[in-house]
């Protein structure tokens, strides 16, 4: 079972250029749970995730990992605990799947201690967990979008961290690949207790797969809690400005958001 860690934002302010996107935000990421951050475009959800993953330096406040501000920790030590799949990572020209996933081992290697069987084990396990073992010698560029995304996830898994943050991992994927990927995160969470934080666009999938939802608007948190408790018509209206009906999902009982729109509604 993986270790439980404290990850929280304390009075955190983040921004780009002259603008503060997030001001004085507080949030706790529950250990060994799946947390999904949702919100409209430009609500600051990706910014928050990037802040939690120390890709953005806080302008105020701090991101606390196990009692210490991450800016005071060695970035290599943070990388052994917190893994991240960025929204659009770059694939080096011609890189093969095995090589790419192997690069996830970077924080566990040193200047002179380069590669051990333990690294091979971790890479093999990551490939297997994502069902990409057969692709190991293929160039990444030759894969379909769904396969490629799973390979990137495998790279993040090879990092072998207790926490895994993912920035819109289901972007550009069709519905079946989205479900497959979210199932995979749930497997990871259930089998080894990995704490998972996902920024997700699809509210219905978030409601189904998340233990905890963090709903954001204009850089602030509007509501947080289990989907069954916090997601209702009022929240959807407030966060997305969308009129809707929220019913229990007939398959799972989780909230199912049905947008009203201006047409077709009887």
């Amino acid at each position, binding site marked *: 079972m993986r270790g439980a860690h404290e990850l929280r934002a304390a009075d955190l302010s983040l921004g*780009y250029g002259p603008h503060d996107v997030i001001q004085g935000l507080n949030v706790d990421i529950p250990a060994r749970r799946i947390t999904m951050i949702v919100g409209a475009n430009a609500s600051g959800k990706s910014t928050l995730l990037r802040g939690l993953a120390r890709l953005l330096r806080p302008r105020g406040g701090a991101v606390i990992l196990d009692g210490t501000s991450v800016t005071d920790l060695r970035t290599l030590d943070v990388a052994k605990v917190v893994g991240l799949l960025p929204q659009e990572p770059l694939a080096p020209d011609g890189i*093969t799947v095995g090589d790419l996933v192997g690069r996830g081992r970077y924080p566990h290697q040193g200047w002179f201690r380069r590669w051990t069987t333990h690294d091979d084990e971790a890479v*093999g396990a990551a490939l297997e967990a994502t069902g990409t073992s057969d692709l190991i010698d293929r160039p990444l560029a030759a894969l379909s979008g769904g396969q490629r995304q799973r390979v990137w996830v495998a790279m993040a898994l090879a990092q072998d961290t207790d926490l895994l943050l993912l920035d819109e991992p289901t972007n550009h994927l069709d519905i079946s690949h989205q479900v497959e990927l979210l199932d995979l995160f749930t*497997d990871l969470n259930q089998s080894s207790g990995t704490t998972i934080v996902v920024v997700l666009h699809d509210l219905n999938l978030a409601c189904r797969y998340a233990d905890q939802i963090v709903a954001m608007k204009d850089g602030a948190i509007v509501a947080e809690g289990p989907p069954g408790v916090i997601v209702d018509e009022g929240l959807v209206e407030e966060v997305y400005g969308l009129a809707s009906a929220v019913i229990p999902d007939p398959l799972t009982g989780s909230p199912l958001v049905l947008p009203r729109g201006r047409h077709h509604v009887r």
Partner: protein
Amino acid sequence: MVRTLERSPTPVVDHGGVTRGRATRRNRAIVVTTAVAGIAVGLFILTMMIGSYPLSAEEVVRSVLHLGSDPAVDFIVWDLRLPTAATALAVGMALGVAGLTFQKLLANPLASPDFVGVSSGASLFAVAAILVVGGIGVTVSMMALIGALVGSLLVYVLAWRDGITGYRFILIGIGVSEFMLSLVGFLIARADLFGAREAMTWLVGSVGQAGRGELLALVASVVVLLPVALLLERSLRVLEMGDDAATALGSRVEVARLSLIAVAVILVAFATAAAGPIMFVALIAGPVARRLLGPSSNATLAAAFVGAIIVLMSDLVAVHALPYVLPTGLVTGAIGAPYLLWLLATTNRVGRGG
């Protein structure tokens, strides 16, 4: 099926092909790197054998290693041929490493020091030294060194916006380059015939023009910085996946990038100070090494030797192929320009690079 990350209880030797795949890549890298190193050393020796007074390989090697006792051979090797051969070897290695580093760092095959302000900065300062101050030898080399550093610093500062990205760096580099080259043109246009000729000779670049001081400085920089570049290759491997991924993996991105750029720029600066701006070597060496090694291998060392091979061969052609001696830069240019055209034509077709 629930897939799990728990390690399997029975020890698996190959870990689903991971061990085998890595071993294959490593073996190929070792074989190829050894081969290109062998060819580079062979050409290095060959360069010292050919000439109006031919020497055997054995004579050359014995003399270089101070094992010979023939003063005439020692004179030919140490005073006449070794400086040129050593310059060619070191310039090629420096340019090969620098080119590959830039290309990987900026994720663009066009990101060669030839185009991003380093060589043109060196050219401007060297030509100014020749024409304005009437400098010769060491003065010109020193100015070229300073110019390379100033040029790259200017590009770095202008391209900086919360970090450095590939496209900005390259486009600003090309802009700065053009600006400096136009100043070079201005200086030459106003120069007298003798000065202009002198400047043009320097601008084409030749490994035969290096003085002893520049050569020693260049060799020292290669001896020190090549191992540094090999150590930094580890950082380069995560940096080429983008800043976000590199940061998430625990790399100190700005420190790593600045170190890599510094190593590359210093190598180019010393190479240019010794031999002038020998074009296209930095552009070609990296891609050739990567093609030989297979994609995404650690190609820095191989690129160094490929660079050396290109310069040594170009020098052989330049000195011996025609009845009169050409500058080395002319031959590398003749090889490099068609490659550049091919690169521009193909990269745009697949929608990357240019």
